[in-house]
């Protein structure tokens, strides 16, 4: 496909949706009546016109797939024959699956916690320093970069050359200058997981930082000043006033990063492709989708396990929504 063709279909694709809304509404406005009875009739058509595209997309891409994935998890690799709990039994006994679950759990424990912690500390520091907003911009910047781009950046940091060569990876150069042997960081089992998590923390701290920065402004200045006049140290203020005050925000950010980390795929796919015991559920699922022509049963089981992780958050969101509706 040439670039010109590509531009043309991009243009056509966008135009299609604009035209749909414009033409259908134009027809309704022109031929819809002014009498009350026809007005109501016209209105219910208009609701359908407004909702239909989004609803169809929602149904085809989210609602139907959720049920279909659940169904497929009870079927064989082609989705044809019912096999009961076979795929689930396979998962429980598969060493790769267990490793992935374990890795996912460590990711869920480490990344949201450290990102939230760093974000809170940095937001608090930057709030009181005149060049704080520049610092915030710099720390926030990785949020704009793709996981794969971040992967390349960090692979360069972790680059390993044999002990006789000049190290071009920053981490090994530091290690060598301190008199230690260079290491192939990404191939050391268990520890390599933490080197991968460092990348995610590097990215997500920015997210925590900007949300905390906004939340910090809501703390009454008088309260902080009163504490300072009473001789409380900054550390004391941080732990006794700021953290309790931001409890809700901390929870929100922690949840937000948890959801992102739960489906982490790109970083591991780009850096190690799940080798050296770094695999997580999303990578294992991708493998099973395409390995040996694909196995939709096992792939679906893995997707469902990821889904189970978000169900508490989903329930909590719905509960909060219900509360808001009551008010």
């Amino acid at each position, binding site marked *: 496909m040439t670039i010109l063709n590509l531009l043309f279909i991009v243009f056509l694709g966008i135009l299609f949706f604009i035209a749909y809304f414009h033409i259908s509404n134009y027809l309704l406005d022109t031929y819809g009546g002014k009498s009350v009875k026809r007005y109501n009739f016209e209105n219910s058509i208009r609701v359908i016109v407004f909702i239909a595209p989004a609803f169809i997309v929602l149904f085809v891409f989210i609602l139907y797939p959720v049920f279909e994935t659940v169904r497929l998890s009870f079927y064989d690799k082609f989705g044809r024959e019912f096999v009961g709990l076979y795929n689930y039994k396979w998962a429980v006994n598969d060493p790769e699956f267990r490793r992935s679950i374990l890795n996912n759990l460590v990711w869920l424990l480490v990344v949201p916690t450290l990102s939230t912690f760093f974000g809170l500390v940095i937001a608090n520091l930057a709030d009181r320093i005149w060049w704080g907003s520049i610092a915030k911009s710099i720390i926030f910047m990785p949020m704009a970069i793709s996981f794969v781009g971040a992967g390349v950046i960090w692979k360069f940091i972790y680059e390993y050359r044999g002990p006789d060569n000049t190290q071009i990876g920053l981490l090994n150069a530091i290690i060598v200058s301190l008199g230690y042997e260079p290491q192939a960081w990404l191939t050391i089992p268990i520890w390599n997981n933490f080197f991968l998590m460092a990348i995610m923390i*590097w990215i997500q701290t920015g997210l925590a930082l900007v949300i905390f920065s906004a939340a910090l402004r809501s703390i009454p200045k008088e309260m902080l000043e009163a504490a300072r006049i009473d001789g409380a140290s900054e550390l004391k203020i941080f732990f006794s006033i700021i953290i309790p005050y931001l409890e809700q925000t901390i929870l929100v950010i922690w949840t937000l990063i948890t959801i992102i980390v739960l489906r982490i795929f790109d970083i591991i796919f780009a850096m190690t492709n799940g080798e050296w015991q770094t695999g997580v559920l999303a990578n294992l699922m991708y493998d099973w989708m395409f390995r040996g022509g694909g196995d939709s049963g096992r792939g679906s089981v893995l997707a469902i396990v990821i889904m189970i992780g978000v169900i508490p958050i989903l329930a909590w969101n719905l509960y909060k929504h219900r509360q808001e509706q009551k008010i």
Partner: protein
Amino acid sequence: MKKISLSSILSQLLLLFFVIVWIIPTFGLFISSLRDKDLLAISGWWTALTTTEINEIYRMSGMESQIEEDGYFKIKGTLFEENSGKKIESFGINSKKINEFKIGDIAIFKDESEVILDEDGNYEWRSKSEFQKKKGKRLFTTSLSPPSFTFENYREVLFKEGIGRAFVNTMAVALPSTLIPLIICSFFAYSLTWMRFYGRDTLLAIIIASLVVPLQMSLIPILTIYNDFGALFGVAAKSYPGVWMAHTGFGLASTTFLLRNFLKSLPNEMMEAAKVDGASHYDIFLRIIIPLSIPAFASIFILQFLWCWNDLLVGLVFLDQVPSEIILTAKLKELLGSRGENWEILTTGAFVSMTVPLFIFFALQRYFIRGLVAGSVKG
């Protein structure tokens, strides 16, 4: 008083430490992408501003270029590319003694031919008898290379490695994948906020539940639908419109949710007044909602655009990995596998893929942050 200034200095130092740790990885990538590829392979990017010593092997020209002069057969030439800036320190004719000769020395080969070399890499190789071999002899050089920066890597990556085309492809994926959900979700959010119909609250609850559904749940069923659709109508199962709709589906819940939260904050009286004046819902939407929603649109546009631009999984699953369809992130991943040692290509490619997000980041940071703070929850 003294105690306060001490703690202020400490917090400045601590923040500086964080800033340095956070900026160094990206900075190193940027510097590396501008360095000469030979230097990049043998020295760390932090030495970019110092002179680097390099050991290289060159081969002199063969018999075709010999000339007869002053009773000698001579082959003249130069080892380095033009304007390389490299200065030779020492050289050798044997791989075991690469530093045997200094500039000005005459090196004599076993066949009694001699070579002299100047520090810019120009050599004169002469022999009493005619040269017989098609290939010239090897020279081992140790030279100092001054700091040099070049855009050569960018030219190579954009036009030879296919990153340029991948950039266009990514744009062709990201732009419709951002605009289509924005269009259909603004109508959706409008009807969820300002129109009365049966099942509205249920629909809203479904949207809120969909916010956190991981996109992994959808991959296999949608891929099956696309394959069936492709087979039924005899078209390719993987195509640009397929990716647009997939991104639209995955971005639908968050886009609708954010837009609805914004629309709900608009005053009800305005809509009522317009309705009394005989305006239809479409009139209200075009004349009132759109102009008021520009800042909200901007935030959502940026979030969704960056999401689509930076996505790997959707582009990997729903597009063929061929030059006319591969997106930047997938291309980078491919290069990581096939050109893992060619850091000039990787660093430059990664930086090219980051240009658009970084531009958006620096130009529109305000809207980006506003969108994130408004509650970016995305499955």
